[in-house]
């Protein structure tokens, strides 16, 4: 989703035009769009007076930023040490079966994208994953299936409403 010029201007002007705000601006853009569209990186670099090469370098350096469109919900499967030992790979396989797409992919409905993160910081809940702002822990195949089904029901409900 590309922001309208007016909306983008409003987003940028929430910050003074200085390079130190680059990451904050990128975070805001990604929150709105789900990823960093090329034209918005260009606009942000121009506004913040940062060379485009450096803005692009920052956008590609941080794992949290995506330069390609992602699903409506980004599933972050924790692959930190504790989750790794508690079979985070099994969580990924379970999601792959349910969504028909592998790590880094977006499902056919454009609803989910599967990613991994190094650690969510909730090791006591291992294996864990994060969808949007929600955390899900002590995952089993059954719990994962229920969580995904729940999201799908909600989406279907939204469409009907």
């Amino acid at each position, binding site marked *: 989703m590309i922001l309208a010029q007016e909306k983008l201007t409003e987003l940028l002007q929430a910050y003074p035009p200085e390079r130190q705000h680059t990451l904050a601006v990128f975070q805001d853009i990604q929150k709105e769009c789900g990823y960093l569209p090329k034209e918005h990186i260009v606009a942000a670099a121009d506004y913040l007076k940062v060379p*485009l090469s*450096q803005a692009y370098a920052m956008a590609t350096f941080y794992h949290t930023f995506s330069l390609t469109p992602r699903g409506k919900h980004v599933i972050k499967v924790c692959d930190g040490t504790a989750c790794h030992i508690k079979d985070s790979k099994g969580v990924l396989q379970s999601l792959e079966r349910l969504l028909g797409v592998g790590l880094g992919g977006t499902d056919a409905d454009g609803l989910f994208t599967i990613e991994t993160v190094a650690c969510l910081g909730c090791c006591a809940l291992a294996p864990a994953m994060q969808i949007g702002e929600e955390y899900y822990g002590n995952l089993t195949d059954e719990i994962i299936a229920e969580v995904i089904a729940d999201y799908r029901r909600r989406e279907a409900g939204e469409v009907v409403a």
Partner: protein
Amino acid sequence: MTVNLMIDGLACEAAPGQHVLDVARQNGVEIPTLCHHEALAGQACCRLCVVEIEEASGSRDVVVSCTYPAKEGLKVSTNSEQVRRLRRTVLTLLAERAPLAEGALPAYCQEYGVTGYDLRFTVDKDEKCILCGLCTKACAELGNSAIETTLRGVDKQVAPPFDEPPAACIGCASCAEVCPTGAIACEDADGVRTIWEKEFELLRCEACGKPFATAEELAWLKERLLDTELNLAYCPSCRGKMSLKDLT
């Protein structure tokens, strides 16, 4: 004010804070480097210039000489067995990263007896770049910040934004000029310079007629030298032979 230090048993004088590498070179002691450039100092990236030091206090260490400050009573050993062993390791790793690197890297490998790299550690067999960052620094200081290191970890590379021919590039070729491993392709042929997949028309020197700079580069220079009366249409070689009067 000067400080006195010993480099390989040779008594040397240095300005306080002057880097050990520069002091050594001034005194004829050669230390190998790849990422060091006099005009763009402070990279401290290739680690080839490691030396052993002993402080006046007696504490010993291994440091990179290109950024280590000269101090009173410092003893530096630039070619000890330990130093050579460390340099062999550095060279092995760099050569494995960039098997096709040209110039000083393969020459140093030969000098230090580094042969038969372990290709298990080679990510790209066609790689020439050791990611020292001299090109991006040159671009930021002499050019127009057209290139940067992008991505990270094993995927890190030097590239223009979005891997497209960079709009900001003025074709000055500073990046290719400073690259120690010949990793940046730049070709001048038939009055056209091709670099970063962009083509620039080369202007001819008004005195000798040789193609020497791009129009974009001269326009950019003019912009920076706001009040200049200098005629920029002469190549550096001809400019050197002219008086200031000829140039204005």
